């Protein structure tokens, strides 16, 4: 009997979960920041996709993965900026603009891909990893979790930083106030529009980096529509996490783990239709909701436009 579940294979499963979960995590984290500030960011799928495109383009043209991630973040912010302008400054519907931006980003990246890459399908070389001394030698988990491209550690750090900011800083208070009672924030002398704009741009940056991670590390290539609904899963993750960044991380990794489990089962020869397995993460989340559903504590002013002096 050949050992199927070798260390190498297990490692690749853990790695697969991480690689699939990380963009979801970044999207969910970004969404959470927007929501905390009172903006229901439906455009996040478009931000991811544009980040995936621009990140790939920059990484491919410059040969620098770091510039690529920067480009991805900027790509996400380029989609977030109109969201900030239209929804926060002009007060247009966040859902309409969000869907519009997603549609637009899908169309535009597919068009650009058609004219730029459709003949050559350029691909990136392997991304260099950074082994964390000590930890990377843990069997199975070490190579999967602690010998990764540095961006992975940065993304984890982003979770911790976000949690810290939410909990322990003035910015965290400002975000919460912007989402729960913008008038109070305004009265306290803080510009609500600025807080929300920064939140949405940060969301764009994180989602864009998530998209860039998909194209640069996840796939090594950009293809149209490659985010495949990851942004919407990010929305679900953010809402499910109810303001706690660590829950976003856990949820994203759960999703990734489910995908890896699918592969593991198939490779082991257990043949369940992939559709059934794909339903598992959603069914799990729904089960949690049905069993433990309480009043979801969403920001009170979520999705509403703030106008000073109006009531």
């Amino acid at each position, binding site marked *: 009997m050949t050992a199927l579940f070798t260390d190498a294979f297990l490692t690749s499963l853990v790695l697969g979960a991480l690689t699939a979960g990380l963009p979801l995590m970044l999207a969910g984290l970004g969404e959470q920041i927007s929501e905390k500030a009172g903006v229901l960011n439906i455009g996040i799928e478009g931000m991811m996709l544009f980040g995936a495109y621009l990140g790939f383009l920059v990484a491919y043209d410059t040969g620098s993965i770091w510039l690529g991630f920067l480009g991805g973040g900027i790509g996400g912010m380029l989609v977030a900026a109109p969201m900030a302008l239209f929804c926060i400054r002009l007060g247009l519907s966040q859902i309409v603009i969000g869907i519009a931006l997603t549609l637009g980003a899908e169309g535009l990246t597919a068009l650009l891909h058609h004219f730029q890459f459709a003949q050559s399908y350029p691909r990136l070389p392997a991304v260099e990893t950074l082994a964390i001394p000590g930890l990377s030698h843990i069997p199975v988990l070490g190579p999967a979790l602690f010998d990764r491209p540095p961006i992975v550690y940065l993304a984890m750090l982003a979770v911790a930083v976000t949690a810290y900011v939410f909990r322990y800083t*003035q910015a965290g208070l400002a975000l919460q106030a912007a989402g729960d009672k913008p008038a109070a924030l305004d009265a306290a002398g803080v510009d609500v529009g600025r807080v929300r704009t920064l939140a949405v741009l940060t969301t764009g940056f994180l989602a864009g980096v998530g998209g860039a991670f998909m194209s640069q590390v996840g796939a090594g290539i950009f293809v149209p529509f490659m985010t495949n609904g990851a942004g919407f899963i990010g929305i679900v993750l953010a809402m499910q996490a109810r303001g706690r960044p660590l829950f976003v991380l856990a949820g994203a990794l759960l999703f990734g783990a489910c995908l890896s489990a699918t592969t593991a089962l198939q490779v082991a020869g257990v043949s369940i239709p992939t559709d059934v397995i794909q339903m598992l993460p959603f069914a799990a989340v729904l089960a949690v909701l049905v069993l433990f559903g309480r009043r979801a504590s969403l920001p009170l002013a979520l999705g509403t436009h703030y106008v000073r002096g109006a009531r």
Partner: protein
Amino acid sequence: MTQTLSAHAATANANGKVPSPGPAHPHGAARPIVTLDHVTKRFPGVVANDRVSFDLWPGEVHVLLGENGAGKSTLVGMLSGLQLPDEGGVLIDGHEQRISSPARALELGIGTVFQHSMLVPSLSVVDNMALGGRWWSRPDREGLARKMAAVCADIGVTIDPNAKVGSLSLGEQQQVEIVRALMRGSRVLILDEATAMLTPKGADDLGALMGRLVKLGIAVVFITHKLNEALAFGHRITVLRLGRRVDEISPERLSALGPAAATAEIIRLMFGADAAAQATASHPRRAPSSQPLLQIEGLAVEDDSVPVAGIDLDVSPGEIVGIAGIDGNGQKQFAEAVAGQRRLAAGRIRLGGQAIERLDVGGRRRLGLRYVTDDRLGEGTVGTFPISLNLLLKQVGEAPFWRHGIEQPEAIAAHARRMVGEFDVRTPGIETAIGKLSGGNIQKALLARELSGKARAVIFAKPTYGLDVQNIRATRQRIREAADRGLAVILISTDLEEVLELADRIAVMSRGRVVGMVDNDAAARNRVGELMSGATP
């Protein structure tokens, strides 16, 4: 802010509109700390402030009076950065300023307690205090809590700095806001109806505090609808009416007039010449008939903050039973349970002998039980809907306004016109969104909705909260008329004067229980006071 007007302001000052340094400003300041110079502010369809001039001197409490919608909030809004004047100028220390945001106002040393709560309910008290600090800094929670404790001690209130604001009663929240404004160390403090939610004792403490603050040279703008407070705490009084400044009563004149004459004068200024003459007729006592109409037995309600238990109350036709007590002692829970909005944990309710505790809101209403909520915008109305529909909010689908479920526009409009006329609702039209009306007019619409038709028993929850003197008078008259028509009336109020003026018997609620019931006689004031403060069992 046009050039001409600022120039005008400069001349006005140069012309030597010299303040009379009365006892109120011991520092004898040479010029006002704040000047509003012929400011005009228009909103769609209204001139909220029409060339209003207003001076605020250091070391004085300047009271702003005026009926609902007179433009008081708008005027101070231009100081606290909520609004920019359309015309006219704002001068701080004699220099023209553009106060374009609340942040700018705070920078200039203007602190405001707004009419509507400006606290984040999901944050703790101390975090609310911390809002607005530098982005990446950690809020100094301990330091703020200490500072807060000091200020609280000053004004004689106690607030748990770690309590979530959302779990505090409205009165407590207002205290938090006052404390916060004081903690900011503002040179100018604006209090827009800050006493509305305080107990009389709390209001007195706040008044004393204002007195101490102005001695330090701070200037206070104090907006209130309670004339006794205005006279007790204020040094100078400005009266607004229909957006115009009617007059200013200087400190000298105020002390010269004495309380009684000043009151008459103010009412004349606020409402015109005849208003002062109307005396408040006191409610003719009637012997309660033997058979109670509304009977409440052993009522209990589960609630996270204030569970209510063991309430027994009988109300006869034509009787007004007042429920006094400090805000947040279960009055709301009690009223909602009787009205059918909340589940009873235990108890029985009978209306005219018929058990109604199992009926829903609509069923109870059809039998004649009515509830006038104190949360006019939050639950009493749908702000974006026209008045006509809001008047029928509790009768949706009933004939003749709907037939076979189909709307009958003529019937609805006719009903609305009748109600608006009968209850004197001042509105541009019956199609106007009710949220655009002033609080007083919304209240009239609510009264019209609840008192029309076959009403038999009515619960009024804080019916005059936030209303001006004239609207208060009109509302109280409605309550009396309701009783005179033979309705059983429960009057829940935090305003002891109101209960004493209207009620036949007075129950006092404390911590979800009725701690005592007294007849409204000469001794009632003291008895109720004792019960409210928990002095006697």
